[in-house]
């Protein structure tokens, strides 16, 4: 490498994915689901970027777009200085060894007919041509790294618990020593007691290897625990991105504030006294997102401008927020929304 290695590992700009909805006799495109609509973010070397949002906000699609498991409609994905979307078939295959993924459901992400050795050994045989004892030797190392035992080598997935399966998936993803690991809700399918173990494993691997994580989750307490920075998604867009602590303590976007108020507090007394912000109605359909700010239909601070003009991500504190409150109305100028008085009280359902 002649180029000086920059601090940025992954740079995503204008990333967009529209899924066509076909119908009728001729299978014409009737409408388009705007699953991901113009994302910009970066992941630095060795950092964890948390990606949060409710179901249908486009988190998982984003993860798959970054790895080019699905082709984006528009945008750029630059990985370590290389535009991933322009790579040919062979170069893309080589690139895959540097970016790996862990999936949500550890029950369906392992081939039920393949032994642990075959599953974890797959990347090793595809990219390094390892076979037999050589491959198994490496697999045993990986098993031990993720807290499993060498004697698990020839067992089948059904012999393992969910947490153990996710460890196997992590071992498989780490086999090629990738620079980026996309974790798509890696602990959502696990028992709470197991979640912490798997997350701590990921953290310790990151400490040892300096791997970057793109950590996708709807669980804010999990994301807070692992992330250096956090991006909050709503209906295919990033509404706020910034330093993890700041997002949690001084949110710059009303949607972030709403999400935070939904995190349960372990103390029942505090939990009861706490004011939760209830969102009105269902999230709007990504088939036909609201005009202006996509959140204005459910926002407790919505102003007239919000329905007309789409806010852009602008610097706010140690991050960015896409909200008109910073320029119009109260003119927060990048301050937190926590102190605002709601102008639209949510109607209790």
């Amino acid at each position, binding site marked *: 490498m002649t180029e000086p290695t920059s601090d940025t590992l992954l740079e995503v700009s204008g990333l967009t994915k529209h899924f066509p909805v076909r119908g009728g006799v001729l299978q014409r495109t009737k409408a388009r689901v705007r699953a991901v609509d113009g994302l910009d973010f970066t992941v630095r070397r060795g950092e964890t970027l948390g990606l949060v949002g409710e179901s249908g906000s486009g988190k998982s699609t984003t993860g798959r777009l970054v*790895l080019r*498991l699905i082709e984006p409609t528009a945008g750029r994905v630059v990985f370590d200085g290389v535009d991933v979307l322009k790579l040919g078939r062979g170069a*893309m*295959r*080589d*690139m*895959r*060894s540097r970016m*790996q*993924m862990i*999936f*949500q*459901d550890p029950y*369906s*992400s*392992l*081939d*039920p*007919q*393949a032994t642990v050795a*075959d599953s974890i050994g*797959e*990347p090793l045989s*595809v*990219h390094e041509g390892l076979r037999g004892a050589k491959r198994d030797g490496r697999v045993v190392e990986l098993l031990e790294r993720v807290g499993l*035992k060498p*004697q*698990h*080598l*020839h*067992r*089948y997935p*059904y*012999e393992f618990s969910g947490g153990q399966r996710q460890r196997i*998936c992590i071992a*498989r993803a780490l086999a090629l020593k990738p620079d980026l690991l996309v974790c798509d809700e890696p602990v959502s399918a696990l028992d709470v007691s197991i979640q912490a173990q798997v997350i701590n494993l990921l953290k310790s691997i990151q400490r040892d290897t300096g791997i970057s994580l793109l950590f996708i989750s709807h669980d804010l307490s999990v994301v807070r625990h692992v992330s250096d920075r956090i991006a909050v998604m709503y209906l295919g867009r990033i509404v706020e991105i910034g330093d993890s602590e700041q997002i949690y303590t001084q949110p710059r976007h009303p949607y972030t504030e709403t999400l935070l108020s939904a995190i349960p507090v372990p103390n029942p007394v505090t939990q009861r006294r706490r004011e939760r912000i209830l969102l009105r109605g269902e999230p709007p359909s990504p088939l036909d997102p609201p005009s202006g700010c996509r959140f204005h239909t459910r926002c407790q601070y919505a102003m007239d401008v919000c329905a007309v003009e789409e806010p852009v991500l602008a610097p706010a504190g140690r991050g960015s927020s896409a909200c008109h409150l910073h320029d119009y109305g109260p003119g927060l100028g990048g301050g937190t929304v926590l102190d605002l008085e709601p102008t639209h009280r949510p109607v209790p359902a």
Partner: protein
Amino acid sequence: MTATLSPPTIESPAPRRRGSGRLLRRFARNKWGGVAAVYLVLLVLVAIFAPLVAPMDPLAQDLNAVNQPPSAAHWLGADDVGRDILSRIIYGSRVSLIAGVSSVLLSLLVALPIGLVAGYVGGLVDTVVMRLGDALQTLPALVLALTLSAVLGPGLRNATIALAIVFLPTFLRLVRGQVIAIRKETYIEASQSIGTPGLTIMRKRILPNIASPLIVQCAVSMAFALLAEAALSFLGLGVQPPEPSWGRMLATSYTYVYSAGWQVFMPGIAIVVTVLAVTLFADALRDSLGREIRRA
């Protein structure tokens, strides 16, 4: 009852557990499946060692024994030219087994790669392949087999090819459908994210996971092939005389059904029992493999 609580076994030495062992155990639970399996194994042995097992030459004519009922000399009697029916049935099993096994294998050989690619790649390839398969499937199986054998000319080899063509759309459809069901599984996406080439994914990830229903379909088709071969031979399109075949034997003996009925029944029973055995075997196989699929 002191010290009844033994310390829990932490880590039993890892036995190499194989899927086939569990399969066999479950299969053995089905009584009729087991009986059928034993019968089929015996049948295969008899077919292979026919010259050793058969009491007589199946082509040798004994004119003193024409249309003779079962006796000590001819256990199952003799046919219209005095050939030993038992020996002919034993030799005829070769024809039935060859026709049954090779037509299914031939069909699978063609349908498997095409179905895998059609299901995995999808799109235009899939549409073209499946429409061709649909066209073939509009014709009734036996009629198609008859027509094809008539066009290709009589003989065991051509009858086998005709049957293979008849099976083609069924296997194509099955393979493709199974591939489509598996293709959306996360472990396929995981393989893709690793960068595993498509052909390797089809071979190592998809094929083992669609094997169970395929094996069952093979057994079911074999039962049909046995019957169809008998029908083709009966109509003179399969095995040619004097070669012994169960269908052929039915064809020559049915004229004596009133005077020497056992001649019809002997090959008839052989056909019925064998088809039944293959079907029971397929059923038992499906039941014992079914659990595998459900868990997966």
